[in-house]
C-alpha cells in the first residue's frame, strides 16, 4: 500500500450528496482483471457525453464541459471535496482504484458509506471526515478562489486552508498507523497465525459442522 504522510494539493469540489460507486466507476469497467487503468473512466457517465466501453481511447471521447472534473482550473486536483454519504452502493474497490489512478489522494466529506471508507484505506486513499459547517466553508472557498489548495497532515490530523485556518479530523489509530507506514494488513494478520490456529481448534470442537464442507 502507498504511504500517506503530508500533502498540499489542489481541491476539486463535487457538490452532490450520495455519490454512489456506479457513478464513480460504471460497471462496464469492472470487467477488468487489473487494479490499474481506471483513471480515464472515473465519473465516466458525468464526465463524457458519449457512452464509454473498456478498451476505448478515452482521449478521443466527447467530454462534458459542464462537469467539474473537465474544468481547466481543477486540472491536476489531488483533493476531492464531497458531500454526505460519498461512495454509497457497491463494494467495488474499483472506486478507490479509479480515484487514485486519476490522481486523487484525499477526499474530504461529512460522511462516507462504510465499505467505500474501508476500501479507501486499503489503497492509501485518505477519506477525511469534517463536519458539515467546515465542508460548507471549504466548498465556498474552493469555488471562490481558483488554485485553492489545502494542506493535509496525517500525523497531526489537520487540514489547513491557504488563510491558515486549521481543521482537526479524527481517524482510527490502526488506520492511521497503516497509512503512515504503508503497511500490508495481511502481513500484520499473519503475525497471529498461532492464535488463528488455536481459534480454529476450539471451534472445531464447539461447532464441527462449520468445518465439514
Amino acid at each position: 500500500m502507498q504511504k500517506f504522510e503530508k500533502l498540499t494539493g489542489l481541491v476539486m469540489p463535487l457538490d452532490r450528496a450520495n455519490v454512489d460507486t456506479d457513478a464513480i466507476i460504471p460497471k462496464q469497467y469492472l470487467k477488468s482483471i487489473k487494479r490499474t487503468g481506471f483513471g480515464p473512466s472515473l465519473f465516466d457517465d458525468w464526465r463524457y457525453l458519449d457512452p464509454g466501453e473498456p478498451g476505448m481511447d478515452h482521449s478521443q471521447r466527447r467530454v462534458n464541459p459542464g462537469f467539474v472534473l473537465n474544468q481547466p482550473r481543477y486540472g491536476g486536483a489531488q483533493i476531492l471535496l464531497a458531500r454526505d454519504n460519498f461512495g454509497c452502493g457497491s463494494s467495488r474497490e474499483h472506486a478507490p482504484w479509479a480515484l487514485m489512478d486519476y490522481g486523487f489522494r484525499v477526499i474530504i466529506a461529512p460522511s462516507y458509506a462504510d465499505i467505500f471508507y474501508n476500501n479507501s484505506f486499503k489503497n492509501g486513499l485518505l477519506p477525511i471526515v469534517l463536519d458539515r459547517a467546515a465542508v460548507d466553508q471549504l466548498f465556498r472557498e474552493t469555488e471562490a478562489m481558483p488554485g485553492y489548495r489545502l494542506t493535509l497532515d496525517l500525523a497531526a490530523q489537520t487540514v489547513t486552508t491557504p488563510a491558515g485556518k486549521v481543521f482537526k479530523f479524527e481517524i482510527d489509530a490502526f488506520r492511521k498507523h497503516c497509512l503512515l507506514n504503508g503497511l500490508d494488513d495481511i502481513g500484520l494478520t499473519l503475525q497471529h497465525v498461532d492464535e488463528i490456529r488455536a481459534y480454529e481448534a476450539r471451534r472445531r470442537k464447539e461447532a464441527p459442522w462449520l468445518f465439514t464442507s
Partner: protein
Amino acid sequence: MAEKTLYDKLWDAHVVRHNDDGTSLLYIDRHLVHEVTSPQAFEGLRLAARKPWRVDANLATADHNVPTTDRARGIADPVSRLQVETLDRNCHDYGITEFGMHDARQGIVHVIGPEQGATLPGMTVVCGDSHTSTHGAFGALAFGIGTSEVEHVLATQCLILKKANNMRVRVEGKIPPGITAKDIVLAIIGRIGTAGGSGHAIEFAGNAIGQLSVEGRMTVCNMAIEAGARAGMIAVDEKTIEYFRGRPYAPKGELWDRAVLTWRGLTSDPDAKFDKEVALNAADIKPQVTWGTSPEMVVPVDGAVPDPDQEADSVKRGSMQQALKYMDLKPGTPMRAISLDKIFIGSCTNSRIEDLRAAAAVVKGKKVAANIKLAMVVPGSGLVKAQAEKEGLDKIFREAGFEWRAPGCSMCLAMNADRLEPGERCASTSNRNFEGRQGAGGRTHLVSPAMAAAAAITGHFVDVREL
C-alpha cells in the same frame, strides 16, 4: 452477564483476538467468491506466494457477467469472457469449489449460498459484493468486502475489523394482504434514509418480520446496505431451521441436532441494548415504488412524485432536483401515471422461487401491455429455474409475453448484455436505482415482483391489490 444483541453474539463467537487499537481479528466461516471482485485478489495472493488458508471455506460461482440467453454459445464479449475464465482458472489452480457457468447449481452468489446450505445460521459470511448482507436473514453475520479484504480472507481466513454499533428496526403488526418483504424494506429505507444505518449492524425484528418466509427475510436483509448498513440480520426461529433441513451443505444426523441447539440461541437477549431503534407499523405499509436515483427516494404507489421546493435541506433539495432531471419526472405526477418500457424480474433481491411464484400469480392468463418493449424473468439460480419450470411458471410467463432467461445478475447492473438503453424506463425488482445502474441513461424504478408483474400487464404502475 450483560444482555447481548444477536450481533454481539455473532461477533463475540468469531473474535480470534482483540487488538490494542480497538480493532479485532474476526474469523470468517464462509467466503463466497465471484468473478468481478476476485481476480486482483488471487493475483495478489500469487504475487506474495501465499496459499488460501482454508480452501474448503470458499465457494465460487460466476454470476455478474454470464449471459442469460444462448449460454451454450459461451460469452460473446471477450472482456467478460476473460473475467469468467480467470475465475475458472483461479478456482482450478487453488482447488476451490466453483459452480461454473454450465453447472445446474450456478446462479447469483447470494441465492446459491443459502440454497446449498453453504451459508448457515451462526456463520460469518463474506463476499466481495455489498449484497452479502442477504445471508443475515438466518442469523448469520454477513457483509460485503472489497477486493483487498477478499485477498485478506483468502490468505488468513480472517479480517481486521472494528465492531459496528447496534441498530434495531422493528416492524410490528399483521402484514396487510398484497404487501411483500420488498415493500417493507423499501418503506424502511424511505424512513431512515440511504445512510440511516451507516456505522451500524441492523437487526430487523418485530412480529411482521417473523411473519415473513426465510426467502422474504433475505429480501429485507439484502437491502440493509441500501440503508447504509454493511450487515443486516434477523434472529433464528423455527422457520429458519426448517429452511436448512436437508440442504446439500447443511449438517446431517447428530451434527444437525447439535447445530440446531446452537442456532436456537441466535436471538437478541430480551433486555439487550441497541444504540439506535426505529419502529414501523406493518399496517401502514403500502406497495412501494421508487421515483428517484437513490433507494430512499420512494413513495407508496398511490402517491406522487414529490416536490423539491417542499424540502428544507438544501443538499437534499439539490439531490431531488438532479434525480427528477435524470428520471425525466415532474413533481406532483401520480406514480400510477408513469408508463414503462421494460420490466426486470430478478436479482439477488427478488429472484427466488417465491418471488417468481408471486409474479406468476399476477401474470397468469394475462398479456404484457403493448408499450412494454421487453419483460424478462431471470431466475436466481439453475435450481430456482428448474423448480419454476417444474411448477409451470415459465409457461405462464412466456404465454404472457415475458422472456424466460438463464440465471445470473443480469439487468440488475447490466454487466452482461442485458441493459436499458438511454432514456428507457424500467420497473425492476432489483436493489439500486442509481443513475446508469441498469445501463447508461436508463431509468430504474424499484418495486416488488408482484408490482413489477402488474406494471408489465398494465404498462404503467398500478396497485397490485387492485388488479
